């Protein structure tokens, strides 16, 4: 093998040095970890569902003039990143299927370039998706804690600057990552970026939840309706658990995989974890499927516009 694709290096980090071609099964065929066999149909279905959902979100935001505000622009950008995540994973799967069945025939160098291009797309869409999750959390935080000054803090110009800079930064950084993927510092940077986003979202959402609960307390104490207060607080807790829980479950395994690559690449226990890499990719695509449901479609206005979009086109 002349070069290893970056994603493949993530799957078998013990093969980092080139030329290490030892096919040593060493008679331990029964002892290796089998991993999970993800059928291609599942990849295809999830990718298509995510694509359609996010296209609908983008169409709804573009169609309704009421949704032309920074909050919805960020949701629209999250939908675009999720769309790119699913498109790039679908593209990789399709090209590999076509190559496997011999329907496409290219030179080795062309295939390598295609592989690098698609991996750059995957990496940049993953980074931008994570960034926009954090940006939406910050935007909601400003809406709640700086409500009176929101329109002077989050002007349309600043929102556009934020979106453009997130896209530029994710593209440039993913090009850098994929071209020098053998460096461990790249993986460390990705892990620290994920941890930063995780801590940011945790802190912001829990602070927002605490304030909402405090207001419910003070208002319900005036109106003497504690039962309504409790059910509303419970709904808030459920919403927050879903938001943060989906984030952890969908992104956590992939980045734990990266952590294990850095810390214990040749440990047999860690190797068993590596064998589930395809499941982690499926979870990231699932995140692209679930994100429109918990971010975009929670808004009444957007749901209404979505109904209009679907009725007009069908």
């Amino acid at each position: 093998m002349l070069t290893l694709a970056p994603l493949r290096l993530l799957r078998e980090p013990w093969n980092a040095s080139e030329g290490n071609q030892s096919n040593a099964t060493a008679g331990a065929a029964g002892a290796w970890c089998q991993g999970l066999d993800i059928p291609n149909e599942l990849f295809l279905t999830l990718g298509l569902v995510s694509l359609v959902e996010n296209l609908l979100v983008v169409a709804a935001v573009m169609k309704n003039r009421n949704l032309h505000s920074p909050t919805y622009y960020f949701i629209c950008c999250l939908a675009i990143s999720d769309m790119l995540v699913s498109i790039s994973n679908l593209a990789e799967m399709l090209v590999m299927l076509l190559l496997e069945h011999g329907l496409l025939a290219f030179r080795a160098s062309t295939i390598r370039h295609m592989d690098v291009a698609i991996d750059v797309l995957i990496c940049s869409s993953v980074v931008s998706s994570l960034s926009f999750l954090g940006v939406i959390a910050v935007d909601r935080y400003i809406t709640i804690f700086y409500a009176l000054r929101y329109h002077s803090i989050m002007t349309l110009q600043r929102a556009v600057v934020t979106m453009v800079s997130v896209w530029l930064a994710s593209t440039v950084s993913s090009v850098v990552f994929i071209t020098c993927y053998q460096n461990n510092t790249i993986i460390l940077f990705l892990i620290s970026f994920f941890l930063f986003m995780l801590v940011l979202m945790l802190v912001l959402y829990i602070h927002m939840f605490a304030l909402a609960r405090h207001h419910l307390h003070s208002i319900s104490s005036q109106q003497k309706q504690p039962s309504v207060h409790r059910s509303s607080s419970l709904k808030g807790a459920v919403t927050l658990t879903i938001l943060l829980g989906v984030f952890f479950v969908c992104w956590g395994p992939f980045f734990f995989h990266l952590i294990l690559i850095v810390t214990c690449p040749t440990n047999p226990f860690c190797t068993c974890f590596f064998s589930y890499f395809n499941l982690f990719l499926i979870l990231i695509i699932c995140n692209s499927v679930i994100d429109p449901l918990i971010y975009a479609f929670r808004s009444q206005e957007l749901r209404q516009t979505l109904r209009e979009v679907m009725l007009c086109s069908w």
Partner: protein
Amino acid sequence: MSALRLISNRTSQHALSNSDYTWEYEYYEYGPVSFEGLKAHKYSIVIGFWVGLAVFVIFMFFVLTLLTKTGAPHQDNAEPSEKRFRMNSFVADLGRPLESERVFSRQIAEESQSLFHFCINEVEHLDKAKQSQKGPDLEGTIRFQEGPRNSGMFEEDLNYLTKFNIPNFVNTEQNSSLGEDDFLISEPPIILESKSVTHSSHRILD
């Protein structure tokens, strides 16, 4: 064109020549890893990770629900007169344009605005159902108000606020002088109550 050996993603390893570039999705090479003499189960990290993740999410949910429960039984026991006194003094604070209290009242007003913003969806529905005609300025202010509304995170949770009538709170905010944010402060009273819409519209137009 060099012959490319493609490995299907179901089978185990094949021998590869050095000039091939193969692009596989699943490719397991067993390398120098040996599974001899393992003390623990080989899937221990995998199982430990998923169990830990599930426990963490459930723990987070219980912490959040416990946060909602603390204070609710205490609230039933609190004296309503004491709470009313606190509310009145707080309302009186908003009316006084002293410097330090201006900052305090601005903070409180900001916090309260946020909750009122969440009700915009529900109240707009009520308003549209009840009143067919509105002044153009009101339309503008209501549309302007839609900006900082978040995308419905808590709107279902707090929709009962639309049924509340908190006239003291609302009227005192209208009377408070908070400089450049005046026109923002006077907007929620428009949204909250359909009756006060026409009343407040005169204030804005004047």
